[in-house]
């Protein structure tokens, strides 16, 4: 649940959307939200039962992430980085290639340039796989940022500098627990997004894909600016709620 930034423990994802609960989460008050924690001082028999239950929960979790829809793409990226595993890459390509292309086409690219840029993005995925850190982002998030940057180049949008990277120091192995909880929270976010009312979801989509400011969305949809702002605000509130 926690990632360490400059020595501070900062809970991932669940804090991102809600400044109001951030303090609590950072102080660990919501640690009980961790679904797979084994209590340290449980009596012997319940303790063993809990261990079994824990192992079962992990297996269920793994089963869930290894189903086709929610495959553990982070592990596939790791295999590409560590062993130049072409089969793992082909699977990643089969899943993310069509999604990157759809994203680029919705952003205004024609099919031919979207195809070309998708290939560029996937080549970058191969080359930069070693920089992927599953404790900092899910595979979908990481590939989205690569596709977004390529899209900015392709459509000659405004230059977008990245923030200075954190002084991480000597890179430790990504923490397995961080990676697992990040993955779980990303899944929750994806589910919450699917459950958003269409009116709210389409506003968020337009903001991400159509490159429009709120007032441009107002022009395109004929909706008043206030309606658009409140729909986006409500959508973010719902997503936050789903993560808390």
């Amino acid at each position, binding site marked *: 649940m926690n990632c360490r930034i400059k020595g501070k423990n900062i809970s991932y994802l669940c804090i991102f959307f809600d400044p109001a609960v951030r303090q609590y989460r950072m102080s660990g008050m919501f640690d009980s939200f961790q679904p797979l924690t084994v209590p340290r001082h449980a009596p012997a028999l319940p303790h063993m039962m809990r261990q079994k239950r824990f192992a079962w929960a992990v297996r269920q979790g793994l089963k869930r992430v290894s189903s086709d829809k929610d495959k553990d793409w982070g592990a596939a990226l790791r295999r590409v980085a560590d062993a130049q595993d072409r089969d793992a890459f082909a699977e990643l390509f089969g899943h993310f290639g069509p999604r990157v292309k759809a*994203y680029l086409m919705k952003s205004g690219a024609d099919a031919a340039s979207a195809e070309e840029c*998708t290939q560029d993005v996937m080549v970058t995925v191969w080359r930069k796989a070693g920089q992927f850190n599953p404790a900092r982002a899910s595979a979908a998030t990481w590939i989205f940022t690569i596709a977004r940057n390529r899209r*900015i180049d392709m459509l000659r949008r405004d230059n977008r500098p990245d*923030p200075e990277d954190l002084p991480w120091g000597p890179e430790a192995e990504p923490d397995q627990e961080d990676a697992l909880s990040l993955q779980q929270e990303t899944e929750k976010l994806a589910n919450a997004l699917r459950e958003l009312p269409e009116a709210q979801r389409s506003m968020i989509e337009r903001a991400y894909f159509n490159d429009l400011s709120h007032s441009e969305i107002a022009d395109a949809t004929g909706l008043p600016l206030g309606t658009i702002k409140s729909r986006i605000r409500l959508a973010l509130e719902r997503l936050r709620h789903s993560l808390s």
Partner: protein
Amino acid sequence: MITHHLNDNLLMAYSAGSLPEAFNLVVATHISVCDDCRARLAGFDALGGALMEDDEADLAEDSLANVMARIKSGAATAKPAPKPRDPVLPSPLVDAIGGGLDAVQWRPVGGGVRQAILRTSDKASARLLHIPAGAAVPDHGHQGLELTLVLQGAFRDEEARFARGDVEIATQDTQHTPIAEPGADCICLAATDAPLKFRAILPRLAQPFLRI
């Protein structure tokens, strides 16, 4: 301790890649020094990833073969070595200026205030401002959006105090006279998508020349 942060709209638009370059520069510079907003941005990037997950388009038949052929010929790229850090300017600004503070080409704009306009796309302008300790920027309002990020020293206006890392988000409703605090000179990065509206006549006359 940073108390004035970026809002959801700015973080979402930066994540989507739809802000003008001058605002991107302010957002990237703020996030470089603000772990809270860095974490919130990661949330918006995750939202972009989740949106991307939900739709597919058919790829060309030879798509994978093409990519595999290109991969064969190229090596993996190592992570770029971190550059030496500037004590005042985070790396997005160092890159925009082409060096540290000593590389900035300051121009006087009156009242002891100096500025350096940074090259960005023309949808919005970005400038560095150097305000001597205790000096004021003339009373002004805004036609569009103005972001002011403090890099050194601090300033106060009628509403609040802004120190290193704080970002002031001024809109059409904001009319203010920022005053640099005593102590260190105040250095800010300011970006705006519309000319400022000065109350006094003299700065108004000078505006076209100073491009503010």
